[in-house]
C-alpha cells in the first residue's frame, strides 16, 4: 500500500483506490459485488424471458402478422393458426369472473374494513389469505366434480328458463363452458380483490367518515358516497390485479372450459382460453410454426398481464399516497 502512494503523484484517485482496497479487505466491497450479482440475475432473467418470448415467436409473427389475432382457424396440419377463439375465450371468462367477483369482493372488503370489529376482521382476513393460497388445480378439481354437475343440473336450466330470452343464456346445458370457467375464476380472484380493497379502504382517513356522519348521513351513505369514492382508484387497482390473475389462470380454466375453440354468444357454450391451449398443446406441438404460434399466444398473455399489473400497481400507490397526504394535513 505504501508503495502505491509513493509511485503515483496524483493524490485524488489514489485515496479513492486505497479506500476501495480497504473496503475490499474488510469484505464490504466483496459483499456488495456478490449481492449485486444475485440481484442483477433477477433483471437478467426477466430480460431473457421477454427475449425468449419475442424471439421464439418470430416465425409465427412474420407469417401471420396482425391476422393472427383476427382469424379463427386453428389447424396444425395445414399450418394455419389464428388466435381469435382463444383471445375471445380468455376475455369472456375473465369478464364473467369480474362480474361476479367485483360486487362480492368489494362488498366483503367494505364489511371487513368498515363494519366488522378489528378482531373479527382480522380473523376473516386470515381465512381469506388462506383461500388465496389454495392452488388452482384444487379449484379445478372442485370445478370438475362439484361445480360442473351443479351448473348442468340446476343453475344453467334455471337461467335458461328465466333469462333464456337473452342470447347469453341459450344453448344446451353441458355444465362445462365459459360460464362455469368464469365462476371458478371468480372464486379464485375474490381473495385478491378483498385483500387489496380492504387495505385501500383502511387507508382512507378517519375524518372523511366522521365528517360524513356529522352531516347526518347514515352509515351506508358515508361508506358508499364518501369512503368508497375516496378509495376508488385503489379499488380499481385491485380489480385490474384480479383481471390480470384471471387472464393468466391456467389449470382451473383448462379443466372446466371444455377446450373447444368456439366463438359463441352463449355463455353456456364450451370454449377455450389462451392459457388452456398452451397447457394442452405445447408439449405435443410438432413443427416450428405450431410451437411458435403457441409461444406467440404466451407473448400476448405476457403483454396483457404486464400492462394490467403495471396499471394496478400505479392506481394502488396513487390512492395510498392520497390517503397519507390527507391524513397529514
Amino acid at each position, binding site marked *: 500500500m505504501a508503495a502505491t502512494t509513493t509511485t503515483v503523484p496524483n493524490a485524488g484517485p489514489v485515496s479513492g483506490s486505497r479506500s476501495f482496497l480497504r473496503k475490499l479487505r474488510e469484505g*464490504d466491497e466483496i459483499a456488495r459485488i456478490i449481492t449485486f450479482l444475485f440481484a442483477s440475475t433477477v*433483471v437478467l432473467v*426477466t430480460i431473457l424471458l421477454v427475449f*425468449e418470448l419475442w424471439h421464439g415467436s418470430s416465425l409465427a409473427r412474420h407469417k401471420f402478422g396482425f391476422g393472427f389475432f383476427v382469424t379463427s382457424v386453428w389447424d396444425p396440419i395445414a399450418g394455419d393458426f389464428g388466435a381469435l377463439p382463444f383471445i375471445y375465450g380468455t376475455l369472456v371468462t375473465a369478464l364473467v369472473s369480474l362480474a361476479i367477483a367485483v360486487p362480492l369482493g368489494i362488498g*366483503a372488503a367494505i364489511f371487513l374494513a368498515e363494519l366488522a370489529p378489528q378482531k373479527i376482521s382480522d380473523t376473516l382476513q386470515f381465512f*381469506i389469505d388462506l*383461500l388465496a393460497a389454495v392452488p388452482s388445480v384444487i379449484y379445478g378439481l372442485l370445478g370438475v366434480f362439484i361445480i360442473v354437475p351443479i351448473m348442468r343440473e340446476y343453475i344453467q336450466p334455471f337461467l335458461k328458463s328465466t333469462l333464456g330470452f337473452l342470447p347469453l343464456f341459450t344453448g344446451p346445458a353441458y355444465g362445462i363452458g365459459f360460464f362455469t370457467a368464469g365462476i371458478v375464476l371468480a372464486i379464485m380472484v375474490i381473495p385478491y380483490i*378483498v385483500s387489496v380493497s380492504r387495505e385501500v379502504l383502511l387507508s382512507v382517513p378517519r375524518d372523511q367518515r366522521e365528517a360524513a356522519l356529522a352531516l347526518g348521513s347514515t352509515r351506508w351513505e358515508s361508506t358508499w358516497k364518501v369512503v368508497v369514492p375516496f378509495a376508488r382508484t385503489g379499488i380499481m387497482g385491485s380489480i385490474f390485479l384480479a383481471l390480470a390473475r384471471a387472464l393468466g389462470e391456467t389449470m382451473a380454466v383448462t379443466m372446466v372450459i371444455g377446450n373447444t375453440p368456439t366463438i359463441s354468444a352463449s355463455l353456456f357454450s364450451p370454449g377455450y382460453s389462451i392459457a388452456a391451449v398452451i*397447457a394442452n398443446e*405445447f408439449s405435443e406441438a410438432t413443427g416450428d410454426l405450431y410451437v411458435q404460434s403457441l409461444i406467440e399466444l404466451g407473448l400476448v398473455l405476457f403483454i396483457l398481464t404486464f400492462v394490467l399489473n403495471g396499471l394496478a400497481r400505479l392506481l394502488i400507490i396513487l390512492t395510498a399516497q392520497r390517503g397519507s397526504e390527507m391524513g397529514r394535513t
Partner: protein
Amino acid sequence: MITRLRYRKFVSGFMLGMTGLAAFITVSVLFFILGYLVYHGGTSINWNFFTKLPTPVGEAGGGMANAIVGSAKLLFLASLIGVPVGFLGGVYLAEFSGGAIAFVVRYAADLLNGVPSIVIGIFAYALVVLPFKHYSTLAGSFALALMMIPITLRSTEQFLQAVPGSLREGAMALGASKWKTIASVIVPAAYRGILTAILLALARVAGETAPLLFTAFGNRFWSPGWEQPTASLPVMIYTYAISPYDDWHRQAWAAGLVLLGLILVVNIIARAILARGVSIPRT
C-alpha cells in the same frame, strides 16, 4: 320527512347486511373446499397412497409415492436455486443499493412476479428442456425457482428494512464493517420473518401445476437423479381428475387433500409466527 329517513336507514341496514353476506360467502368457500376434499378424499388416503407406485388402469390399489417424492425433489432443488438468488438480491436491495439500480431490480422482480405461470413454463422449456432435449426434474425446479425468486427477494428486502436503524448504528459504532453488521446483526434480527416468507413462497409454488406440465412433465414410475421426467402431486391431480376412471378420481381427491393440507398447515404456521413476532409485509 320521517318516511324518507326511515327509507335511508332501511337502505343502510340492508346494504350493510349485504356486505356481511358477501364476506360470509367469500370465507365459507374455504370451508366448502376443505369439506369436499375431506369428504371425497379422506376415505382414499391409506398407507398404500404414500408408499406405492400408481397402478395401471383397472387395477385397484396403488398410490402416489413417486409423485410425493417428485414434488419434494422439485421443491428442494427450486429452493436451492431460488432462495440464494432471492435472499442475496434482497440483501443488496435493502443494504447496498439506492436509486436507479434498485428501481430496475424491484421493477424486474415485480414484473416476474406477475408473469402467468404458464408463460414461466414456456420460458423454462426454452431455456432448460430444449438444450437438454428431454423433460427433467431440473427444468421443473428451474420454473418453480423463477416463481420463488421475486417473492423471496421482495420479502427479504422488506424485513431487512424493518430492522431498526439503531441496531445498525450500534454495530457500526463498535467498529464492525458493513458486511459484518449485515451478517451478524441485521440478518439475525430479521431471519424469522425472512424464513417464514420463504416458507410461504414454498407453499405457493408447491401447488403450481402449469409450469410443470412441459418441464417436469410426468412419470408413472420413480424418477432417479435430476435429469428425467418426474411425477409431481399437482400434475398428478390434474391428469387423474380429467381421466375417465372412477378409481383415479378417488386418488385425485386424496392427492388434493394431502396437497392442500400441507399447504394450509405451512401457511398457518408461517402466519402464526409472523403475527407473533414481526409485522406482515405487504407483498
